[in-house]
């Protein structure tokens, strides 16, 4: 299987992708945990994809795990990420047409994604998003961003700041001035 894996790399044919996902590669978290992931799923990460392409599939399958050294890639975050890519690897490719892109941005998360990303532990949530960003999994970063947006929409500045634990580096006067300038936001018709 691994012997002829290289020449089918990059083929978008669905059967080939399914077949390739039966090939398991190993991913190593920054905490040292090693986890198996289907090849097609793992390649949803552009970081992993580039590594696989430069090393060759055979090398990746048969040798050492791919090391994900960023500290956001904890064991827990990597497990979540593998769960996500294993669910999404056979999604249809994203169309980058401008109008569609706009629709896609406004599109709600699927039920599965909502359940997946709604984790109570905010440190884990942020690890997953930061790790997905490091691993360059655009779809998952987007899911994380949309999830946070759904939580902050319509909330006051102070509420958002508390929720996301953002450090306020404005002076009281500066903040006051911004609130005055933005009174229009809170003006109800």
């Amino acid at each position: 299987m691994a012997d002829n894996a290289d020449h089918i790399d990059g083929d978008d044919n669905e059967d080939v992708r399914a077949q390739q996902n039966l090939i398991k590669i190993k991913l190593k978290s920054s905490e040292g945990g090693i986890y198996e992931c289907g090849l097609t799923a793992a390649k949803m990460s552009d970081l992993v994809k580039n590594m696989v392409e430069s090393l060759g599939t055979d090398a990746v399958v048969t040798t050492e795990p791919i090391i994900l050294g960023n500290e956001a890639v904890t064991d827990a975050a990597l497990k979540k990420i593998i769960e996500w890519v294993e669910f999404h690897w056979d999604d249809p490719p994203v169309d980058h047409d401008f109008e569609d892109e706009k629709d896609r941005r406004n599109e709600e998360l699927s039920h599965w994604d909502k359940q997946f990303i709604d984790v109570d532990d905010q440190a884990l949530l942020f690890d997953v998003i930061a790790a997905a960003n490091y691993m360059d999994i655009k779809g998952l970063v987007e899911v994380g961003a949309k999830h946070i947006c759904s939580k902050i929409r319509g909330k006051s500045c102070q509420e958002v700041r508390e929720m996301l634990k953002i450090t306020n580096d404005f002076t009281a006067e500066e903040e006051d001035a911004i609130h005055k300038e933005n009174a229009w936001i809170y003006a109800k018709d």
Partner: protein
Amino acid sequence: MRKYSKDSFDRFGDDLCQQLLSFLTFEDRFRCECLSKQWRRLVFNTQKDIHYREDNNWSDLSTFEMILKKCQNITHLRNLVYTTPLFGGSNTWYITDPKLALLKQTLLVKNTTNCQNLLQLRIDMPIHNNRQIV
């Protein structure tokens, strides 16, 4: 490098803030202005496109001007009010609203500090609007 708490959004760089802002409405983006200096900078810098509507909360001229002053990277302003070149091929602007005359001065005179990156100003005229040529 400064170490941020893992459950704090402070750990994220501009790229993720920007990504987040891209999913928010115009109004919610400005709600984020007061979060921190990083957010304020990104709210201002990433606003490229403004769809003006008469019924917006920010459609009065002073608020609109303030927004234009803050957002220096605007390249497209759309759906401004009540004016159009009346005849095909003519570049003359026909103003029907004193507010727009002011707006035109503010926006289109090259030596103002607003909208230096403006590429396109799309102005729509409702068909039944009473046309006045100035």
